[in-house]
């Protein structure tokens, strides 16, 4: 067998599953987003052009979900990227405790997000741990998930906590690859700690920074599990996110066409942000390098 045929053969299993479980459903729902689709009456009931998109764009709740989702992304992605890098730098310096800390901070990523959400729902409740601590320091305690101004930020804080350990692992791995000679050279040149970090470490691990930011952005746009378990979009729509809105459209209203349209709006949004981020971060690299 020729090596090229062999290579192609090895790719077949993945290609088949990708075509079957990714490409086909994606194209199918793209079609559905331009059609009337009634699951009770055997599915497709004809194409309706842009009707589904018009339908969601004229819904105030859709725009509310858009704003909430973007707020969530903007409020979680940069802090997560920065905090996990800081965490990685600290763990790096921890010496013998390194292994324990690395594992400890990674634990939340092993626990299902549903479980984390449930635990935080109790932490945030009126009689929860958070208010207990606030009480010890003379605070009055807040209704974290019941206050329309606090509910989404509360979920965001939880999300950051739950994901920094995961991204810190990527940074840790990247930090190991920075050649010692570069540090030595910088120090010989008289660079201080911060200067070394800015001029040596950061440029070297920039590809990982890009990776972390882009991957986390994609994930943050799809925020859903936290909302289902903790607030179901409430109070007063303050935690309504795009994917949760899509879920409601699909499984409460049984409006599969509109739900598919939302899915493609989310897809385009993610693509746009990911492209912009990759561009920007590469540009920074070019200007520094």
């Amino acid at each position: 067998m020729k090596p090229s045929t062999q290579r192609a053969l090895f790719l077949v299993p993945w290609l088949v599953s990708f075509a079957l479980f990714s490409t086909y459903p994606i194209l199918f729902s793209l079609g559905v987003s331009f059609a009337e689709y009634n699951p009770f009456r055997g599915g497709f009931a004809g194409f309706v052009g842009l009707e589904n998109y018009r339908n969601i764009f004229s819904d105030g709740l859709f725009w509310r979900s858009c704003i909430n989702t973007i707020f969530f992304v903007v409020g979680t992605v940069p802090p997560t990227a920065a905090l996990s890098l800081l965490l990685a730098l600290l763990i790096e310096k921890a010496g013998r405790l390194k292994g324990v800390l690395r594992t400890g901070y990674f634990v939340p990523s092993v626990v299902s997000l549903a479980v984390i959400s449930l635990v935080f729902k109790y932490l945030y409740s009126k009689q929860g741990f958070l208010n207990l601590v606030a009480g010890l320091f003379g605070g009055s305690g807040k209704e974290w998930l019941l206050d329309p101004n606090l509910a989404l930020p509360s979920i965001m804080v939880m999300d950051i906590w739950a994901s920094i350990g995961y991204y810190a692992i990527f940074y840790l791995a990247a930090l190991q690859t920075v050649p010692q000679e570069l540090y030595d050279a910088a120090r010989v040149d008289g660079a201080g700690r911060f200067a070394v970090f800015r001029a040596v470490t950061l440029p070297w691990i920039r590809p990982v920074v890009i990776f972390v930011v882009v991957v986390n952005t994609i994930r943050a746009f799809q925020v859903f599990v936290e909302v289902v378990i903790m607030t179901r979009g409430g109070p007063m729509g303050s935690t309504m996110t795009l994917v949760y809105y899509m879920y409601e459209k699909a499984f409460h209203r049984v409006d599969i066409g509109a739900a598919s349209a939302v899915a493609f709006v989310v897809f385009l949004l993610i693509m746009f942000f990911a492209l912009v981020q990759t561009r920007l971060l590469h540009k920074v690299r070019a200007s520094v390098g």
Partner: protein
Amino acid sequence: MRRLAALFLAALLTLLACGREEEADVVFWQFQPPEVMEGLIDEFEAQNPSIKVRFETLTWQSGYEKIVMAFASGEAPDLLEVGSTWLPRFEDEDAVIDITGETEDLVADLMMWDMATFQGGRFGIPWLIGSRVLFFNRELFLGSGLNPDEPPATWTELKDAARAMNRPDYGIHGFGMNAGERYVLYKKFMPFAWGNGGRILSDDHGTCLIDSPENLEALEFYLSLKPYSVLERQDMIDEMFKQGRVGMMISGGWNLKRIPEDAPDLDFGVALIPRPDEDGFHASFAGAEILVFPRGARLEPAMELARFLAGAEQALKISSRTKGVQPASREALSHPYYDEHPMERLLLEQCETSIAPPPVPDWVEIEEVINTRLEECLYGKITAPEALRLMQREVDAIITE
């Protein structure tokens, strides 16, 4: 080599497992505890040796999704348990079979046919019925100088009791008021409105009647409970009630099972939902589990199973276990079981004066309007008259669409 052999064996086993699935005559999807259902199905199969039943248990969290997807892929079961508020949509879409002709003889035996009837046709068999009642903490009643043997029967008594028990500094609240979730609010408010003679839609479902003096009076009363209440989501209110931190709440029969399990020392009672005064009535929110036959079902054996399950004895086996629902069978009303279980009898009694949401296909949308405006009102964003005016306008738009 050994790994390869193991892989082969695993593949073979998978294939065998797929091939061996038993052919069933009736596929039944339901929400009741599988251990109770298993016994009932065994009993049924013993009585009907020619009918093989395979049942699957759905959960309330994801059941609706699964049902919708099953209809979409043409794999709906032969017999299906559905919540009564879902049914109008299924009926409107012709997704379930009209069984008017097959159920003539059952009409007198079962209650709550309204919920299975759509545009004059019967589309399902009422199986289990449920309602919401007032739960109260007897200990807190005593501690506040109230008589636990005379729970509040009118609005005034309800508010007085809530005020008497409310001590937020000690973490104790007079009443548990739902907030922060959009799905249940109307179930808690509408009993007050209905008891006061308020309506959502006219009898022919053609006119919206929400913006009425009766509903306004009820909403203003409901809001007046807020100073003596804790605002929380249902699961948290249930939890706080078990901890003895909530004096009264409106909740469902499932608590009759869960409270003794989770808080065996809690001394609590149940009462009918208070009425406005001597003139009004003890209204509550009614729901039912309906057995329906999806389009394409094998009707004959499925009907046999449905008739069996709806019988008083069988339904009572489920309700005595779950406590969340009561049999729709009239025969169960006089069953000695209820002599020994007064709290469950009260639940059954509450069912008799409970009202179901109007059976219209757009109910989900209407419910959402009511919930959204009610929530805004609870959070003080809009006043009660404004809330009702907005509900009226938005529901009108939905039904005239």
